[in-house]
């Protein structure tokens, strides 16, 4: 019962949170200088009557507060509006980009968390020894390496010099427009995925190594571990069954944090590799002052962050009864 009440409370709290996020974003987006129409028009001559027509069609001739209430009421009806740039429902534009971003992020977070946890555990076990120092060095390098630089270097080495991998995009031309997913096409996508995911995963890797290592080192120094050793349990058994289990809520929280921001994509990586994901969409829409798309993405990200936090909290609540109260 307590668990259910806790969940309901958490969900109800999320709703005003999302509304506040929408409001702040709406204000931020609109106080940026520049007129959305100036991107659409570019440096061309366009008849003033057409501009006027666009302005009223997009509601840009109304006062800001009026636009705000129209927007909120539309969002409550699950309508994110029409993109200024493409004249297509925002939701379609976002959904079109979503799979590419999720694929990139899931694979990157997946491999980096798996490898990072393994290396982190190894480092904590060999605390102070060579393997620990090696792991720490690796973590420092991975955290401090600039994404775009790593991406460009990988492209130059594997794409341009060795001609092993494609340098750009997600799909080879001959698979574009395909009706269904064939095994060849999946391989093609995976082939395009290698460099971006290597780049992005490297950035996450260091975070996982560091957190797991420091969490475990703390945990292994506790008295119950000493007691377990005294009981004569094997050190691997203690490491995994006692220490790792004790720190796993923190690791799940970290994973949740990364997965929550996953929808935002990775602007730099996506830009370097021309990956058709959300990160690039945010960037392009901001340049074009495509307010509905920017706001739509922010709402998506906000909801996903709130939801993942909710889920992480729930998992922790199930794992750890203390959280519930």
């Amino acid at each position: 019962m307590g668990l259910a009440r806790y969940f309901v409370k958490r969900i109800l709290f999320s709703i005003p949170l999302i509304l506040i996020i929408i409001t702040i974003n709406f204000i931020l987006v609109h106080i940026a200088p520049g007129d959305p129409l100036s991107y659409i028009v570019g440096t061309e001559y366009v008849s003033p009557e057409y501009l006027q027509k666009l302005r009223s069609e997009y509601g840009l001739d109304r006062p800001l507060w009026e636009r705000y209430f129209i927007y909120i009421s539309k969002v409550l009806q699950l309508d994110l509006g029409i993109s200024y740039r493409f004249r297509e429902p925002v939701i379609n534009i976002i959904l079109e980009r979503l799979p590419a971003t999720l694929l990139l992020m899931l694979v990157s977070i997946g491999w980096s968390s798996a490898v990072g946890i393994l290396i982190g555990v190894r480092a904590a076990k060999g605390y102070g020894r060579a393997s620990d120092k090696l792991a720490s060095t690796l973590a420092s390098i991975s955290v401090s390496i600039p994404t775009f630089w790593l991406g460009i270097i990988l492209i130059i080495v594997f794409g341009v010099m060795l001609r092993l991998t494609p340098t750009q995009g997600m799909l080879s031309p001959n698979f574009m427009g395909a009706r269904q997913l064939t095994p060849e096409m999946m391989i093609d996508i995976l082939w395009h995925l290698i460099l971006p995911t290597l780049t992005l995963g490297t950035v996450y890797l260091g975070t996982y190594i560091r957190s797991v290592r420091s969490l475990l080192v703390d945990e292994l120094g506790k008295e119950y571990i000493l007691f377990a050793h005294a009981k004569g349990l094997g050190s691997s058994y203690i490491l995994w069954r006692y220490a790792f289990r004790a720190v796993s809520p923190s690791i799940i929280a970290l994973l949740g944090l990364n997965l929550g921001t996953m929808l935002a994509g990775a602007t730099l990586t996506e830009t370097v590799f021309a990956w058709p994901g959300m990160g690039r969409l945010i960037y392009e829409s901001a340049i074009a002052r495509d307010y509905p798309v920017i706001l739509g993405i922010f709402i998506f990200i906000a909801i996903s962050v709130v939801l993942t936090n909710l889920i992480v909290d729930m998992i922790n609540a199930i794992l750890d009864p203390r959280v519930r109260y």
Partner: protein
Amino acid sequence: MKRFILSIAVIILISISIFIQLFIGTSHELGLATVQASEQNRPCPRYGGVLVIGRTDDSATLNPLLTIDDASFMVANQIFNSLIERAFVDGQLGYKGDLAEEWNMSPDGMTLYFKLVRNATWHDGYPLTAEDVKFTLELYLKESLPQSAFFRVIDHVETPDNYTVIIKLKQPSPTFVPLALAFWRNHMIIPKHLYEGTNITTNPYNLKPIGSGPFKFVEWKKGDYILLERNENYFKAGLPCLDKIIFKVFPNTEAMLKALSTGEVGAVTLVPEPNLEEVKSMPGVKLFPIFTGLGLVLYIGINTQKYPLNIKEVRQALNYAINKEEIIKLALGNVGRPQRGIFSSELGPFHDPTVGYDYDPDKANQILDSLGFKRGPDGIRVTPNGTRLSFRLFFTAGDLPRMRASEIVKEQFKKIGVEIIPQSYDWPTLKEMITVKYDFDLVWFGHATGPDPDRLYVYYHGSQIYPGSWNYIRYNNSEVNRLWDLSRTIVDQNKRAEIFRQIERIVMEDAPVIPVQERVLYAAYREEFQGFPPGPYWYANHLETIWWTKGSIRSPAEARSLILNASNILTKVSSMIPGDILDKIRSLIEQANQSYREGNYDRAYELASQALSQIESATKTPTPTPLTTPTEIIKTPTPTEKVSEKPGPDYTLLIAITVIVIIVIALTSYVIMRRRR
């Protein structure tokens, strides 16, 4: 822990497959349409191939009537046709019929006749008639469209029959044909049956257009790519040469050029000036000028209403102080020519080559001295009322050539005691600052005339000063206004040229701008593709004659008709052929179809002719003994064997990935096993 790792792995695998599946989504059905067999015209040396064109901007819309930017026009021009288009005619810049077979203008300049081709159809099979043309032209008048202003001179459109269009003008117009009908913005014809009675801005066909052009729309992944494929029923016989065109968007020039060097793209829409040398050195890549006769001029716009820039002599001094050659050489790619006036030399008689200012810093200093602007302790001049001659020079953020050029301008102006502070903003911000708030001193800008100088009306005519307009320099000279209005009533080109030369002289005397460069822009292609440039302005030309050197010699129509022929004969005589041979022939035809779909027309043709000869031999031999014939067939190099010869990089890839996965699993289990011990 083992379970932990395992479950993570399983989750990742499942999610990958789910999201790849999602990514594919629904898409266009690739079907084989029937093609007339009688086609003998062969304008293409080779057929087939996929051209990927790299660019840094995506299209905004595919409806040509709503199109504003180059990126949108370029794609729309492949899907739609216009009445006439600007083209090279016998090596000279002129007009060529597109949908119009013949056209002419009445002597009084009030009536234009167009005779349309009779075999043009929309991609959905409907015929394209004069009604569609009338409907499109009337839309320009009825609706507020981006290009509507150029069509206002139309009085009405008549269609005496299905293939004749007569445009009646309100008054003779020297600019109607060059600016409205066939500027670099060709006005294109849209289908009446899909647009009539709908809201043009929200019509769903804006996003999946049905046109009449050489290529059909297949798929648009916004911000990623647009896929077009051959229109098998294109009204120009034997065209287009390519099978598919893909317009692929890159996040920046560097990424695009890298893809050009690796061959991932076959052409790029634009090579910015700083990258010209890099592209020149790429093996197998060639540069070509994007346009002929566009009249693109790069200049520095001056805020003519802001003290002290509102003083004519100050603006003249700035003009004297600019060394255009140096700027072009050091910052602007060393291409194009120094520009002296507001009109480009490409306009011929409309431009006065003697107009403008030579580089003369001494004279500039003299002028500023005579105005009483004395140099302060830091070498920067100060006006009598204490204003420092310090100006901000704006350029669009990320525009490398203009950024470098600004630094050179800064050095050049230092010599005459004027300080320059280069500043950059993103385009929407910059546009608001210069055209709405008028909060600027100097700004890098460009304008293009196309075939007629009247296009610059909105930049220099006094009536065009209002917030958001292109006369952001707020230049207003009553004599220029009068002459410009006069020019619009005259049809005689010699008289108009004289008026425009006079306008240019007056404007340059007032010096509201500092002309710098007559620009030449370049694009690049890989040599596997031929036929560049496709016309005088490649954003506005059909890419129908560009061909792939590795393509098929047989045209798709030839291959298709042979396949149809073979299968028709087969259905007629199938009862005469024993079952096993029948299967063999059927599979040959199926393979021919497969090759056709893959765009290998030579192979499809060869397979179909093999099928035909097998049908022939099977029907000629009265009762083939069941023992010999199959063995014969096995002996002949069957197409299936050839197909399997095709090197399969995908298999090596599959193996490589499998090996990697096995290694990873082995390592993981090793580590886990060690922990157990």
